[in-house]
């Protein structure tokens, strides 16, 4: 009997949903917009975070050696650096590797490649890339490099200061987050209001049925459940709407975004990797908004 009632209530909820296609469509649309804005916020957050993290990883000190320095001459410096705790890792780029890297970077520029092959000798310098643990470690590293014994082989070294960029990015992320949360909350409130109104309308058109149900002893759950289901359905269809829209957007915009971010992040991969979680989250969020709306409408107009 419980099972039977569940099916009947589900049917009634579906009927409520399809009762007026355009109203349901518009309501679902607003809800989809809300879910969409929340997911976009999450994706933006991810992009920002990844960009930040990769910038923070890039606390690099590059040491350029004189052209004629051999790999064996570099070895002691490297070993020395590896022993101090401030250094996370070191990476040695030989002259040859530096050339290869340079060629790879400019492979789409035939002019550079051509002029490079004009040269008889490899013009690039061997480099040692040092990753520090934190920006404050720079002084410890530079004191090693300034050691007299290495003076002859080091041409120059520099410290890439990402601090300013990181700071700026942090501010931008915080701003986007603030705006995003504001927009999402606004949309959420609007969609709750719209859903509330739609469900109120359904209740109103069914007040005779509700009266009869009360009279013959339908339980409160049976009377209210179809409206709850109606609310959940708005969440359900809104999830489908927003996910499909997002998928299309991500698919076509990801290459541009990825290029813009210098391939530090892969938006499409992030979206696809987390698709299941995103959809579940959307469903839960959408259903929660729908249920909240119908509860308010039920409270107000069914007096249960």
């Amino acid at each position, binding site marked *: *009997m*419980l099972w*039977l*009632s569940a099916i*009947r209530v589900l049917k009634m909820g579906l009927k409520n949903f399809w009762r007026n296609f355009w109203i349901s469509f518009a309501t679902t649309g607003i809800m989809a917009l809300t879910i969409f804005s929340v997911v976009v916020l999450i994706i933006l957050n991810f992009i920002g975070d990844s960009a930040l993290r990769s910038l923070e990883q890039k606390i690099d000190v590059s040491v350029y050696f004189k052209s004629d320095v051999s790999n064996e001459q570099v070895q002691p410096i490297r070993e020395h650096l590896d022993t101090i705790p401030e250094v996370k890792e070191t990476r040695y780029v030989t002259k040859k590797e530096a050339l290869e890297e340079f060629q790879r970077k400019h492979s789409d520029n035939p002019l550079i490649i051509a002029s490079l092959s004009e040269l008889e000798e490899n013009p690039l310098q061997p480099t040692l890339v040092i990753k520090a643990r934190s920006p404050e470690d720079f002084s410890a590293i530079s004191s090693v490099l300034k050691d007299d014994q290495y003076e002859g082989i080091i041409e120059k070294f520099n410290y890439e200061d990402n601090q300013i960029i990181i700071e700026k990015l942090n501010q931008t992320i915080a701003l986007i987050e603030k705006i995003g949360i504001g927009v999402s909350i606004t949309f959420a409130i609007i969609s709750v209001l719209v859903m509330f109104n739609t469900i109120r309308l359904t209740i109103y058109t069914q007040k*005779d*049925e509700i*009266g*009869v*149900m*009360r*009279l*013959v*002893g*339908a*339980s*409160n759950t*049976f*009377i209210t459940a179809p409206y709850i289901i109606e609310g959940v359905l708005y969440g359900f269809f809104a999830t489908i709407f927003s996910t499909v829209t997002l998928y299309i957007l991500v698919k076509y915009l990801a290459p541009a975004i990825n290029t813009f971010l210098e391939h530090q992040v892969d938006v499409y991969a992030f979206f696809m990797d987390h698709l299941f979680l995103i959809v579940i989250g959307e469903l839960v969020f959408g259903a929660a908004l729908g249920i909240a709306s119908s509860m308010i409408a039920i409270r107000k107009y069914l007096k*249960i």
Partner: protein
Amino acid sequence: MPESIIRLRDISKVYEEDIAALCDVSLDVMEKDFVSIVGRSGSGKTTLIKLLIGEEKPTAGEIVINGWDLCNIKSRKIPYFRREIGVVFQDFKLLQQKTVAENIAFALIVLGTPRQEIHKRVPGVLSLVGLSGKGTRFPNELSGGEQQRVAIARAFVHEPKLLLADELTGDLDAIYAWEIMEILLKINKMGTTVLIATHDKSIVNRLQKRVVTLEDGTIIRDHKKGRYVI
């Protein structure tokens, strides 16, 4: 020994603005009884019915219907109480966009009755009220009297222990009104307690059943085989 299915003790009902619709009403109705509540317009008949189905709460007093203490019933329990009674209101409350059969079936659907059971019961109750073959009609394709029969059928389809009817025969001519009464008598014979509120003199006199007379919210007469005397 039949038990009392309706038990009212010193019931008062005061609506807002100090309108006392009922005042110190005590009444016992035994199981399988047939009782008519009569009285002038405004004497409190509808108010009494509303109290009996738990739609209104009394201002003072005690109401026990079929074991349910309606003064202290939790609102979420009311549906379960309602399943043990059947009610017919003056305005029938039929759903216009549903057919006769659907209207009756609706009462069973919302109670979780299985489909086969519904298919069995609806024709049975339609024939009981004399509407066999009219199940596929819509309420607006029926006469007022026929609509009333549908309302009775819906109130009785779950075979309640108590059937309450308010102003059933209001706008019907005498012959038609009596046919409706015969349906209620049949239902009563099947073992259901029936309580009707009416001001139809000739019907009450012809019934030869218990008559309780209300005036200004109090019971002024209670006759076993009563007549409607005002």
